[in-house]
């Protein structure tokens, strides 16, 4: 009995502590509803990790909402949280947004999307972005339609276009190296796709898996010495240490192809790839539709509508390479784009 009492005491303490704060907050919200015009909305943006591409996603998402008439600070209130790649934080952030009863949660990257989807339990629409494979993550059904009040955009790489591009840049190359983190589901599925398509373009994929960023210097040097070029994924750990990989490739005299514009700006030679800002914009437009009353699950998830060829002439020149003539017309200089 004593034990039971003390446990109840503990729970009661926690309860008073939180309802104490929670109460005042609810009060504020009520006061606001009185002066709200119909369009005033509050959304939560939950980002899994601090990371250039994901930051761009969020930036684009806000632009997409603004284009649809939801402007931050005017008729849109945003609660932005970043889980710092910590899973315990990820769950708590998702749950606190649900507790806040926001009108919509924008979840950036797979674990955050899953945590938000789980916490929202269909009560709050979840719009995810930067989820490579929504079907594998069980955030969408096989046919692409949404599951319980969730939809969003996938940042699936244009693997086929990328391989074709590499073939044009390096007609004689035989092996393509890929460095990835074994703990990142997105990377693992991207490699599967690379492997299944490599044959069509006469490439052999050489993969090198790491478990933490400390492994990158050795793994990168080893990989660079074995292959004719490296194709980089959107692997969070590797992208965070991109300069190390670029350095190893430079020493070996081989090019690194990127998978999105930011990587090309930072020194990869070219990509047939993603622009996370436009991916974010596309997601923002979807979110606006949901805010206007469309049911999230009735909107199938979307992949980026167009890929572009981005090049970095300076990085190409450093390797004595040039952009193939037939690609030049459509190539955009990464450094000159917005």
């Amino acid at each position, binding site marked *: 009995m004593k034990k039971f009492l003390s446990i109840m005491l503990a729970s009661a303490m*926690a309860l008073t502590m939180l309802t104490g704060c929670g109460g005042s907050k609810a009060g504020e919200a009520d006061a606001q509803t009185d002066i709200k015009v119909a369009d005033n909305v509050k959304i939560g943006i939950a980002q899994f990790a601090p990371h250039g591409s994901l930051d761009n996603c969020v930036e684009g998402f806000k632009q997409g909402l603004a284009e649809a008439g939801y402007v931050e600070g005017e008729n849109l209130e945003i609660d932005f949280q970043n889980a710092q790649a910590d899973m315990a934080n990820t769950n*708590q952030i998702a749950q606190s947004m649900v507790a806040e009863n926001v009108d919509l949660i924008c979840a950036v990257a797979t674990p955050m999307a*899953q945590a938000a989807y*789980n916490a929202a339990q269909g009560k709050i629409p979840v719009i995810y972005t930067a989820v490579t494979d929504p079907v594998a993550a*069980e*955030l969408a059904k096989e046919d692409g339609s949404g599951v319980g009040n969730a939809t969003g955009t996938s940042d699936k790489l244009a693997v086929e276009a990328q391989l074709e591009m590499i073939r044009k840049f390096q007609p004689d190359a035989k092996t393509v190296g890929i460095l990835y983190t074994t*703990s990142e*589901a997105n990377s693992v599925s991207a490699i599967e796709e690379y492997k299944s398509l490599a044959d069509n373009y006469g490439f052999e994929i050489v993969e090198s898996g790491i478990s933490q960023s400390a492994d990158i210097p050795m793994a990168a040097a080893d990989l660079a010495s074995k292959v004719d070029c490296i194709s980089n994924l959107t692997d969070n750990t590797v992208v965070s240490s991109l300069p190390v990989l670029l350095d190893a490739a430079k020493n070996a005299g081989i090019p690194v192809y990127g998978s999105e514009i930011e990587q090309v700006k930072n020194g990869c030679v070219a990509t047939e790839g993603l622009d996370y800002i436009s991916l974010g914009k596309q997601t923002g437009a979807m979110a606006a539709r949901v805010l206007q009353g469309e049911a999230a699950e009735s909107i199938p998830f979307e992949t980026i509508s167009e890929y572009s060829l981005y090049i970095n002439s300076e990085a190409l020149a450093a390797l004595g390479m040039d952009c193939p003539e037939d690609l030049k017309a459509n190539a955009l200089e990464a450094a000159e784009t917005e």
Partner: protein
Amino acid sequence: MALVLSVLEQGFIYTILALGVYITYKILDFPDLTVDSSFPLGAAVCVVMIKAGINPYITLPVSFLAGGVAGLVTGLIHVKFKVRDLLSGIITMTILYSINLHITGSQANVPIFSDDNIFTLSPFADKLGEYNKVVVIFVIMLVCKILMDLYLKTKSGYLLRAVGDNETVVTVLAKDKGIVKIVGLVIANALVALAGCVMCQDQRFFEISMGTGTIVIGLASVIIGTNVFGKLSFIKTTTSVIIGSVIYKACVAIAIWLGLAAIDMKLITGALFLVILVLSNFRKAGADND
């Protein structure tokens, strides 16, 4: 209210883990880093079984056993190969990362959104509605706590406490202190893996990185609990660990709710840690002077 429920849910799940950390850190005085990998180990075992269509309730004892094996490995490395405590934990933790990926078939992220779990199959699911989860977790946590209280009263449990306090006592009693340590590590990691199993069914997906920083949460809960409430003689230490765990989660929730920058979260956790330790040291010093 939803926020309170979420704090209690998370707090009670991490209590199961903190009970394990309490054995290694407080009783055995053994800084056991195995925890960061035995937590996802429990989750990995859980998703594989659920995906295979096995009753989710069976995952609980199986995860518990799997964690026990992890603890056994750390214990053997430490006791039999005479590797320092901290290092033995690190070695097992590192090895387990690969093992965990092998268990899930090298999938770093396994969702179980469309499968039944201990919450959907709970006998109270219909009656309790939104309280269902917290009740199920509370019951599992309470069973662990009561079993542990009972165990600590047995002869084996008494020896466990003796090893941490004064190893010579155990030797004098003609008992092998190494074995006692191994037993402690087995129980501790079994509890941690059980927590991982429950956590995974609560969040409905497995993620290989879900163990990162687990030891910090466990230690924080134990330290907050035992330092703030441990001095009150009418509260059992295991109970104070429960309170500590809930308080820790409440602090994190408040930090998020106040909109503190995410980059400051670790700073705040560290500061909270320090304040509690310093305060309790002051109190101890005061008591000594009396």
